[in-house]
């Protein structure tokens, strides 16, 4: 059978390009027609790619992953909004999160290109990814809802970009939780 995965790759490219443009171009994320167009492209692309990935898992796993992600993201968001103590302010964790994500990505690349070089566990990798993106979600939420006494905050014109960052965090969390639940379900099916 001929394998032709142009649609998922095209959607991934679309969403990536729109995210990169929004990140590096201030005018693109603040100019009225362009930001909505980029947001639509990003959302459609991400939806298609997430739908494509999740269609390889059982329906039950998808629903339970969605519910788990909703609960996790809701609790993280509530914590970030209600936590007013500056001691636990996560908006200053930007550099630490960047370095953690670089290490995480490098580990993933090492596993893809040199499979026997590093010890790898699907479950542990997925758990690490879910934790990392929950921290990212908390960080971005803090950047959005923070008050004037905070050191870092998102500009009030960047609401589209803020929504995009939160959305990408939640989607990544969902994908890692889906991997955890999917691997657990496939393990239980094998045992049966």
């Amino acid at each position, binding site marked *: *059978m*001929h*394998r*032709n*995965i*142009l*649609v*998922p790759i095209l959607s991934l490219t679309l969403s990536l390009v729109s995210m990169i443009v929004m990140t590096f171009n201030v005018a693109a994320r603040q100019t009225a027609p362009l930001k909505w167009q980029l*947001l639509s492209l990003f*959302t*459609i692309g*991400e*939806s*298609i790619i*997430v*739908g*494509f990935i*999740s*269609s*390889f*898992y059982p*329906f039950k796993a*998808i629903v339970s992953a*969605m519910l788990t992600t909703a609960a996790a993201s809701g609790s993280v968001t509530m914590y970030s909004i209600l936590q007013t103590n500056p001691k636990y302010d996560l908006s200053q964790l930007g550099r630490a999160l960047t370095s953690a994500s670089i290490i995480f990505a490098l580990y993933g690349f090492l596993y893809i290109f040199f499979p026997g070089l590093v010890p790898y566990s699907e479950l542990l990798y997925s758990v690490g990814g879910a934790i990392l993106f929950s921290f990212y979600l908390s960080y971005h939420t803090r950047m*959005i*809802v923070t*008050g*004037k006494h905070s050191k870092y905050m*998102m*500009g*009030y014109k960047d*609401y*589209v970009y*803020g*929504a*995009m960052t*939160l*959305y990408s965090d*939640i*989607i990544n969390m969902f994908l890692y939780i889906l991997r955890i639940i999917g691997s657990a379900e496939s393990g239980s099916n094998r045992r049966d």
Partner: protein
Amino acid sequence: MKDKLKILRFFIVSFCPCLILANQKSIHHSHLSFPPTKLSTSSFRYKKYGHNLCHNSSKLLHTQWLSIRGGSDTSRPIWTFGSKPTHPQQYQQSQRQYQQQSSPYPIVEDVTNEENQKQSQVAKEMVDSFLSRDNRQSFITRVYAILTTQLLVTAGVVLYMASHRNIAHWMAFEGRMIGKLKKKCQIISIKYYFTILFSRNKYASKHTSSYPIPHTFTR
């Protein structure tokens, strides 16, 4: 006049380093009884204090130099710089006198100070407007409204594709139409590129740059 000023400047700079030190210190003390005189190497110095330079330097010699050596003032320690602090009203009066004596043209430093003040005021207004509660609330509301819409769209697409597995299967294995579309897209993009390349000079003078697009697609 310029030569005299140069000689005086040379004398002050080369033979009185203590005076310079005292004068540099005096810049930071705004309570001095005479206007602060900068002995900088800047060319604006003579423009600022042109005809008052001799007067100011003599004042310097009579106040600063004496105060460095201690003088007869027992209320101040011997190592302090600058003259005695005066009453604010006296200082304001002397400031007014100095401004009357000095040139009517705006001083470079004053102009930059005014600009800085204006800039800081504008920045403060911007920050205040940015940090107002209403703006922030509307910003948060917009963010979460957009996010909710995005998540609803994604959840709908995911659930639809999870319940209709044949779509994903078609995407992964049977996208024949996509292959044809890909070839067509490649041909159109190459055609468009060459049309733009060759007709750029031709169309630049008469038409807009987007004119070749319908030209390419309608051909």
